[in-house]
């Protein structure tokens, strides 16, 4: 078959451009790989404090609960799961692994949504019932939901300056009615029931609505209190006096017996080894992410669409959020 010359030329140009793209892709991959290796080297530089031994044999597993606790099952970079579901996945791995004889739950979180927090708590509780020793290591902040998660562990260790406590439940909704009136903006609401737009930002809250929300808060609070008491092997009445939402430092928390000891992450790992009857040099199985993953996760944190319209006190994304969360 005869093909017109100009068609052949176009085809050739297309092929050349395609080839050029492939070559560019190879160059870009090489550059990204060099950056990846460089970042990896920075992360793995010997720091003098090493909790990771050779990864063979029985040891201590590390689970990290960092930032606000949310379910967030949607994929992050490369479709990887984050949030409570990712933490539970990690705990599942540890439950199934014959190498994990004790777990350190490193918590650096002001808490988060009720359901996500309860899911992590329940998962930890399941591990605890299987006689896998759990040690919570509290970082900067382990307040509210962060503490709720910690209370599922056999032993809680905090730093002297850790902010913890804040046992309570909170629901926030901004009232923008006056602002909207000032701007001359009205909202048309067509609803199937009188409470369908409960916690709406465009009008005042009615006493009945307040009562309904309060009931939900109280119910979540009772569950919080019950679970903390269960985890701590204490009576609810012992916890209740300090379960008024107050935050406290590590030393005060120790005084009120809501933690078991003061110490660093290293101390928590040692405690886990001791509770798991492991030798002092047993390996530590920490979460290992490639540096490229970390870079992409951090980029997602910076540019993720949900962060662009997020203000700490006013979350327009979900007005129905009831949280175990410390909101300073």
């Amino acid at each position, binding site marked *: 078959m005869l093909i017109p010359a100009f068609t052949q030329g176009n085809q050739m140009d297309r*092929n*050349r451009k*395609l*080839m050029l793209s492939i070559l560019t*892709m*190879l160059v870009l*991959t090489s550059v990204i*790989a060099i950056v990846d*290796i460089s970042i990896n080297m920075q992360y793995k530089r010997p720091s003098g404090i090493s909790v990771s031994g050779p990864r063979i044999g029985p040891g201590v597993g590390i689970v990290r609960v960092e930032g606000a606790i949310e379910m967030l099952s949607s994929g992050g970079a*490369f479709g990887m799961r984050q949030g409570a579901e990712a933490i539970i996945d990690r705990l599942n791995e540890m439950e199934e692994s014959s190498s994990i004889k004790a777990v350190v739950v490193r918590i650096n979180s002001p808490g988060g949504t009720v359901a996500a927090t309860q899911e992590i708590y329940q998962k930890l509780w399941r591990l605890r019932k299987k006689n896998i020793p759990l040690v919570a290591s509290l970082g900067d902040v382990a307040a509210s939901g962060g503490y709720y998660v910690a209370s599922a562990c056999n032993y809680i260790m905090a730093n002297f300056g850790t902010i913890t406590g804040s046992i309570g439940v909170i629901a926030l909704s901004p009232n923008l009615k006056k602002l909207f009136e000032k701007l001359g903006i009205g909202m048309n609401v067509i609803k199937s029931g009188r409470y369908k737009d409960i916690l709406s930002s465009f009008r005042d809250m009615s006493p009945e609505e307040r009562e309904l929300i309060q009931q939900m808060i109280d119910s979540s609070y009772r569950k919080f209190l019950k679970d903390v008491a269960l985890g701590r092997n204490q009576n609810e009445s012992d916890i209740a006096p300090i379960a008024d939402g107050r935050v406290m430092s590590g030393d005060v928390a120790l005084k009120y017996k809501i933690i078991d000891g003061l110490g660093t992450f290293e101390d928590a790992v040692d405690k886990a080894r001791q509770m798991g009857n492991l030798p002092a040099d047993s390996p530590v199985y920490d979460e290992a992410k490639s540096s490229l993953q970390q870079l992409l996760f951090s980029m997602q944190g910076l540019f993720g669409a949900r962060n662009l319209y997020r203000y700490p006190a006013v979350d327009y994304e979900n007005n129905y959020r009831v949280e175990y969360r410390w909101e300073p």
Partner: protein
Amino acid sequence: MILSEIRSMRWTDFFLHTLLDPRALYRMISRNEPRCFLLSFTVPAAVAVIDIITLSLLGRETSFFYYKVTYGWILVFLAVSLKIIIAAALMDTASQFFGFKGNMRELIILVNFSLFPDAFILPLVYIFKIFRFAPIFFFILFNMGLSVWSALIAVQGISEMHGAGIGKSVMIYLFPVLLVGTILSLIVILLVICGVGYLTG
């Protein structure tokens, strides 16, 4: 002159034909239009860099990596180039043994371009490295696969060069390997004999 050649993008045809039509690649090499001898050496150079990066990506790296990636690749490139020249010379000898006309220059270019698939080892392995899914296993697997692909390119190129059948082309391509293998075996046997003689003596 060189800039206008680069802008014309005709040089990309060599890479395109390497992947899609090795016989057309040889026809381009034989026309020497555009000139391709030096261009062909960009392939072993790139493969040297990519090999170093890939191996570094799979291992635990120290700051020595920067030396490897800036200077080390030159050494690897020189070693690979020497290997290519020796292999091409031996293939040329084998061709003449089969009664074909010697053409070492074109053989060097052909073998250089035939290494191009090896450059894909990095993106292929990188995917498995990111997902931490048996990267070493896939490195070995892809390396074997890409080596076979390289061999197929060279064999088809040799077949087009001499108008020879695939069987003879394979023999020509494998001649350096067989020869070096035989020599190494003989050396090992001689060393064993010498060792045994030394020990019994």
